């Protein structure tokens, strides 16, 4: 377990595209029985999808503007900007640099991208907290994905699952606050969720969509079943907390069926496991902050967040979010 002291998560904001797809409307393409079966299993009823002129950074930018305003931060007081995504605006340069300029941050800002998905938010919090521990006072963690741009519309294992979103989390130095982490990777399963097949059509008018995403659901499920309960149960044992002590466990919103199973294996009731997947789909790296912003979690002094998937990569964080401002979800 890794502990980083004197770090506070001050505010979180989430933004989704205005355009919304109802999965039931895809019955014509995949067949009604098939679509109903998939929806019942993965739990996704609606998803917000970026337009051809919108990129991941647009949603993160909107979220960033709102957290900066809510906290009354001066742009020059932000020492670092981390952008976590698997669907950056460009292959190069780093989208973090694009956002540094767009947000009017100082030229002294440390800005860089991180390529992680399902576990990306937890890794982003760890990196942000580490930067604060090294002397940076304020960090802006921008996490989001527009996976819809790399989904093959005929692939039923991915085309009903993913939604788009971009989030911003503001972290600052604060005495007495602490974040605890556990993190891991297993690249032997790198091919189970991968984008390597060249896209046939790229309709994006801004940004890029270089390769189709493919996912081996069975292999991912086997990995998740083996890794996630083990990670969470040992993490809670190390922390000295029982599952009943946790106000809420915010899982990466992989799919509803999987989350029900994982909750059971770690001793969480359905009331302890908020779900945003029904309304927003699997929003990849953005799913944990989007769930926090959208699900009205009342008690927040003992929160676990757990990310797992593409990489394969996983991580969990334990935090007190009772003083964290969770801003309402906005559509753009």
């Amino acid at each position, binding site marked *: 377990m890794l502990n980083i002291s004197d770090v506070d998560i001050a505010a979180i904001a989430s933004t989704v595209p205005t355009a919304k797809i109802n999965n039931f409307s895809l019955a014509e393409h995949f067949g009604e029985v098939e679509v109903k*079966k998939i929806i019942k299993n993965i739990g996704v009823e609606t998803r917000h999808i970026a337009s051809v002129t919108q990129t991941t950074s647009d949603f993160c930018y909107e979220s960033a503007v709102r957290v900066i305003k809510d906290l009354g931060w001066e742009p020059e007081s932000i020492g670092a900007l981390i952008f976590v995504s698997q669907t950056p605006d460009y292959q190069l340069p780093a989208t973090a640099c694009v956002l540094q300029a767009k947000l009017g941050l100082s030229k002294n800002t440390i800005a860089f991208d991180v390529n992680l998905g399902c576990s990306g938010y937890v890794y982003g919090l760890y990196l942000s907290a580490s930067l604060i521990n090294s002397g940076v006072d304020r960090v802006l963690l921008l996490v989001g994905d527009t996976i819809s741009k790399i989904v093959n519309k005929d692939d039923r294992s991915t085309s009903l699952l993913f939604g788009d979103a971009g989030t911003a989390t503001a972290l600052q130095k604060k005495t007495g606050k602490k974040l605890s982490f556990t993190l891991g990777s297993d690249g032997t399963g790198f091919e189970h969720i991968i984008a390597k097949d060249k896209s046939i059509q790229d309709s994006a008018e801004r940004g890029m969509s270089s390769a189709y995403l493919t996912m081996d659901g069975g292999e991912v499920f*086997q990995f998740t079943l083996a890794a996630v309960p083990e990670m969470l149960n040992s993490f809670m044992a190390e922390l000295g907390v029982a599952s009943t002590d946790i106000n809420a466990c915010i899982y990466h919103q992989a799919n509803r069926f999987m989350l029900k199973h994982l909750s059971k294996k770690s001793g969480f009731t359905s009331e302890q496991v908020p779900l945003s997947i029904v309304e927003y789909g699997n929003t990849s790296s953005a799913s944990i902050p989007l769930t926090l912003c959208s699900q009205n979690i009342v008690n927040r002094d003992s929160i676990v967040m757990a990310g797992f998937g593409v990489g394969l990569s996983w991580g969990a964080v334990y935090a007190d979010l009772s003083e964290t401002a969770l801003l309402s979800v906005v559509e753009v």
Partner: protein
Amino acid sequence: MSKEAKLLEIIAEILECELEEVSLETELNEDIWDSLSVVSFMAEADSEFGKTLSPTEVVAVKSIKDLLDLIQ
């Protein structure tokens, strides 16, 4: 409840059919034994029988009897 009876109950639920419609001899072709059925069964095997199965072996079965062998 015997392992076999529990298995048939699980399969009927996964295939969304009546319990009377399934037996150990029921064939599982790829039309009904699709990827969703496979992961659903992996989850049930884990929670009901404490067995961690690989998707490769669950995909390869030809009948419910093969599934019974996997969870023995």
